[in-house]
């Protein structure tokens, strides 16, 4: 029980940090060509680093307490959100932006009234991917020196051959992963009712 609370807390905080940073940076990158040129190549390179490869460095720098675990989860959540948001922004229909320009709207107004709503579908896709990544990395993070958490419970039970506890942990992970994804999906469904897609048709 304690383990579940610890893990959920880490996912929640790490995911929040990672996705908020991704939204901030993604918005900047998507809206300014200069920022894009400065940041994009670095991001592309960092993205190809398997998130796990950060673990040893984070343990060394941030100790074995909460910070390295949260950071790892945040990194895991960051990239899917960032990549999807940037591609969502750059794929906004130029024709819709033109309509806004005809009405004399400029940069920030266009961003608020056209670009943000138009890139919302990609952002939500990114958030869902980011969330599943967060679950993945929280378990990994807890494998390395944690004293509580579902990941810790798994390795600990392995050593004491408690298969039953291992199953409880696995079922918990499946349950929480599914529940949190469903919550995001419900949000997505509500926010994107306007979309004319196979998905919205089926649920209409």
């Amino acid at each position, binding site marked *: 029980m304690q383990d579940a609370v610890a893990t959920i807390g880490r996912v929640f905080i790490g995911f929040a940090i990672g996705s908020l940073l991704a939204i901030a940076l993604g918005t900047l990158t998507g809206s300014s060509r200069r920022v894009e040129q400065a940041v994009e190549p670095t991001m592309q390179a960092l993205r190809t680093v398997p998130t796990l490869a950060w673990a040893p460095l984070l343990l060394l720098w941030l100790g074995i307490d909460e910070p390295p675990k949260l950071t790892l989860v945040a990194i895991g959540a960051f990239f899917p959100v960032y990549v999807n948001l940037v591609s969502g922004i750059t794929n906004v229909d130029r*024709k*819709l932006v*033109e*309509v*806004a*320009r*005809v*009405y*004399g709207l400029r940069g920030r107004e266009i961003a608020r*009234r*056209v670009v943000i*709503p*138009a890139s*919302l579908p990609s952002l939500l896709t990114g958030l869902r991917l980011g969330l599943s990544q967060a679950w993945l990395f929280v378990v990994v993070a807890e494998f390395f020196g944690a004293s509580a958490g579902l990941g810790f419970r798994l390795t600990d039970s392995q050593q004491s051959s408690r298969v039953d506890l291992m199953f409880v942990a696995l079922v918990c992970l499946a349950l929480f992963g599914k529940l949190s994804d469903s919550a995001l999906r419900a949000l997505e469904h509500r926010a994107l*009712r*306007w*979309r*004319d897609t196979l998905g*919205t048709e089926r649920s209409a």
Partner: protein
Amino acid sequence: MSTPLRLANIRKRYDGFAVLGGVDLDVDAGEIVAVVGPSGCGKSTLLRLISGLDTRFDGRIAVGERDVRGPDRAVGVVFQEPRLFPWLSVAGNVAFGLADRDTSRAQVLVRETIDVVGLAPFANALPKELSGGMAQRAALARALVTEPQVLLLDEPFNALDAFTRMRLQDHLLAAWSRYRPTLVLVTHDLDEAVYLADRVVLLTDRPARVTDVLRVVPARPRDRRDPNLLGLRVALLEALHLERSELDAAG
């Protein structure tokens, strides 16, 4: 409230390729001018320049006393496609260009304009629930609600079937007669040109220049079967055909 529109010697090149080769055109306040010409001759480019979406050209475009240097609220545009914002309802789309769209005055204005184009029952519908003709009517309402002094229409009824097109032409005339904006309509439908316009302007193929201007005499409301209109249509066809054979001879 409308303004004359003046184009003087408009030249435009794309990648060193002359698209507009010195277009001159004066449109009176409240007049309807149809611009016809072979497809790809630069008609749409001309509208983009007037709307201020593209400011890289030579020559002078003036709306009333002011030169066009960028998008201006005095100029409204209806594009070839409806270009509705898919996340906004019809009413939300129509209200898009209103600065005071949250006030009750604006709400009333939006409802009225939606009513003019016959979409009242669909005011709260999302664009995905509309047919092509309804979507284009919503786009028309969005352009009309700000009462632009000059309204530009770029083959607005192009993608619609013949019946819907005729209905929309009448919606457009009804809307125009409410406050009489200066109206420039690009089309390649000659029937549409002679039915709607006071004058029909012919453009040549690239680089586009004004070759001919026909005045449409019959008073409104016009009858589509009016022999005068049919005669004008024939004259237009001949002018366009002449154009073509001159080109063939030259090429």
